[in-house]
């Protein structure tokens, strides 16, 4: 459904994306991961036809993203990474305006979404909180029931409850056969919603993988405070675990899937005052990919 082949797009600064190749098949949900400035938004801008690639092609549903952008927009929903709404409008005015611009008549889906995300669209958008603006952006992207959704950091600013609500929305759209490309920083979200994931770094795709596969490869990080640090360090090193000692005497131990059992049994040999699992950030995954040096 979404195809990018050999696309290069550079800015004056020399940054950009280089020779990107990927496809999102119809009905798939693909996560697009990468650190800030890696080129996620640039790719998305090209897909929406806002920017013209220097070379290569991209298309959505067999329509060229540059030449046939207005055609594509008919069946595409988009959430910008940095949402800015037209000035001086209220939330419901904005939604009505977007419907009018698209020629959508029915308000049924809009009302359904407003209810689902618990948004009251009355009042000036300027006075909205960041979360409310994000919800408004989500509704604007989903309300015309598009076949393809391109979402740039769709959950930024949402509280955990709403992030779950949003995940439900994505899964129900997926069940309806929608094609979704979603950029994110947060691995947990991608893990929950996407089938496959695309990882970009410095404008180049470094990995395109199934989420399950990535999960298996990913190492967990346990934050551990031992009773006798010297003893504990010795035992862990002997067990062959990668670890890092933080300044306050806390250990960070990297454990891959197959070594989980052995880690628990090894840790049982010394006094553990505290143990928790560290939230996996994208950076940790990259560390995993490139070794600790990166």
């Amino acid at each position, binding site marked *: 459904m979404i195809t990018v082949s050999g696309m290069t797009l550079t800015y004056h600064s020399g940054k950009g994306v280089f020779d990107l190749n990927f496809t999102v098949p119809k009905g798939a949900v693909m996560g697009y991961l990468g650190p800030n400035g890696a080129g996620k938004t640039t790719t998305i801008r090209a897909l*929406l*036809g*806002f920017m013209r690639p220097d070379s290569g092609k991209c298309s959505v549903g067999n329509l060229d993203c540059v030449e046939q*952008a*207005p*055609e594509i*927009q*008919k069946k*595409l929903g*988009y959430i*910008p990474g*940095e*949402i*800015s*709404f*037209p*000035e*001086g409008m209220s939330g419901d005015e904005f939604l009505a*305006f*977007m419907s*009018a*611009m*698209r*020629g959508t008549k029915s308000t049924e889906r809009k009302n359904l979404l407003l209810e689902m995300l618990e948004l009251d669209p009355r009042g000036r958008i300027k006075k909205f909180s960041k979360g409310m603006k994000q919800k408004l952006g989500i509704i*604007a992207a989903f309300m015309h029931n598009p076949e393809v959704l391109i979402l740039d950091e769709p959950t930024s600013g949402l509280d955990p409850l709403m992030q779950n609500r949003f995940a439900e929305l994505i899964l129900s759209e997926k069940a309806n056969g929608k094609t979704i490309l979603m950029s994110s920083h947060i691995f947990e979200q991608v893990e929950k919603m996407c089938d496959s994931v695309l990882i970009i770094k410095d404008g180049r795709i470094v990995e395109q993988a199934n989420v399950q596969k990535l999960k298996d490869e990913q190492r967990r990080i346990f934050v551990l405070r031992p009773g006798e640090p010297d003893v504990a360090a010795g035992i862990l090193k002997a067990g062959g675990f990668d670890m890092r000692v933080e300044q306050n005497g806390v250990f960070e131990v990297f454990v891959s899937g197959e070594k989980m059992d052995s880690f628990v049994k090894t840790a049982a040999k010394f006094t553990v005052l505290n143990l928790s699992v560290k939230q996996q950030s994208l950076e940790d995954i990259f560390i995993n990919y490139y070794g600790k040096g990166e």
Partner: protein
Amino acid sequence: MSLALFKHTLRRSWILLVIFFGVLTMYMTVVISMYNPEDMAGLIGMIEAFPEGLRIAFGFDALVTDLTAYLASWLYGMLMIGFPMVYSIILGNALVAKMVDNGSFVYLLSTPTPRVKIIVTQGIYALTSLLILFIALFAVGVLSAEAMFPGELNISAFFRLNVTTILVNMVVMMIAFFFSCLFNEARLSLSFGAGIPIAFLLMNMLGGSAPDLKVLSEISIFGFYDPVKLIAENSVWGVNLV
């Protein structure tokens, strides 16, 4: 042309139009009410006391005494160019460059509306709003002149004067709008969109004040525009179509 967008633009920008209409209405009625046929002789005497260069620079160059010519020189010499120019600069910038700059233009592009259609719609709004401004001001002019000095205003000449002034202002609007579309930063759009019309205006004033600098006013778009001559003869206004 997209009707939905036109309505949106209208809702966003009508206040600006009303403000300029209010200010110009005030000037127009005040200037008309200051007209006094008996005092005109005294007034002419006063203006003649100014140095000639200064007189021409401010557009009071031809000394005439009937109401229509009085308006042409006092009102249309400077005010009816200057104020609409500010309007054109503000609106022209707001219609495209400002939206591109603050990112809300993205939402227009994420609808099935081709860019050309968006720009054409905004352009149509720009010109239509100027047209409405001048139609309303023409009505104010005619009504207040008839109320205060019945029969004194030469309506057909006044009409001709307004048509030309609209065309001149439309050129200014097009300049501002062109730069608004050309640059993606409001900063640049404003410097060019405002800078060029203001430069033309200054060139015209300078060119009028000294014979040596006459060439300056001839290359300015306002050099073609001569409200006072216009009401006397009606051949000049084709030039403004350029």
